[in-house]
């Protein structure tokens, strides 16, 4: 992916040099033409077309913002009731991601949604221990996290 972005910038500069100017609209036009050229020769470069990866990253950010707002409303309902009855709990979550940066991204996203905080990670990166504020059923929560977060991160990680 880095090679494709570098080639795209070089093609943009080549276009600006052939038009004998260095203004911003010419560079943007050269960038778009370079993107078309790289799309045509995408089978000869390593990795898939990088715009697909950008689209998956943007989808991840949108999913994350929606989860953040919904879970904040849940915490607000817990705090504002007259009598608080929360049942917190620790549970273990089996994780199936392989690379290091994917595990880091998953635990950051789990910690950022309210109601779950990652407390410890086992040594071989296969289990995450999570503390939840209001825990009705541990298996249900595991399934919720798996369906919403882990699939999207696995899609980003594919080359």
């Amino acid at each position, binding site marked *: 992916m880095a090679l494709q972005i570098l080639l795209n910038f070089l093609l943009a500069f080549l276009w600006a040099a052939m038009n004998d100017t260095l203004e911003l609209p010419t560079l943007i036009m050269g960038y778009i033409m370079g993107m078309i050229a790289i799309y045509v020769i995408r089978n000869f470069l390593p990795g898939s077309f990088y715009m697909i990866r950008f689209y998956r990253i943007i989808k991840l950010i949108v999913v994350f913002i929606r989860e953040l707002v919904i879970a904040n409303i849940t915490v607000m309902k817990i*705090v504002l009731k007259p009598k608080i009855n929360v049942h917190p709990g*620790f549970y273990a979550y089996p994780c199936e991601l392989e690379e290091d940066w994917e595990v880091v991204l998953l635990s950051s996203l789990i910690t950022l949604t*309210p109601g779950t905080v990652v407390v*410890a990670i086992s040594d071989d990166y296969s289990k995450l221990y999570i503390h939840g504020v209001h*825990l009705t059923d*541990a298996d249900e929560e595991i399934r919720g996290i798996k369906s919403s977060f882990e699939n999207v991160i696995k899609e980003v990680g594919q080359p």
Partner: protein
Amino acid sequence: MSSIIAILVLSGVFFSIIAAIGVVRLPDMYSRLHAASISSTLGVSSVLLGVFLYFWYFNNNFEMTLLLAIVLIFVIAPTGAHMLARSAFHSDVEPYKLTILNELRRDEIGHEELREEDKQRAEERKKEKELEE
């Protein structure tokens, strides 16, 4: 545009007040960590986004520093929350007495060395379940 800025700033202030009330009312240190680190992050991000839009629209001044501050809060707040939770667990801060599962303690200590307090608590919970039935 004025209404968008007003909605963003007022919702940010509302979430910050919820976070402050949560820090006072919740019964346990781990629960207070949830309310303080995460709710206040969302609230302050909304306020800073409103301030950025105000400076861009009314003074025609694109401040990149505010966007950088928002990204900084999103990166640093979960790291700080994780470090606090881990250090509290290893310093034996007691969780709330109605905590349901404690698999982390079981995996770290081992099955044979459950402390006597945990055994008493398990017995009390069994008696409560029998009374309910």
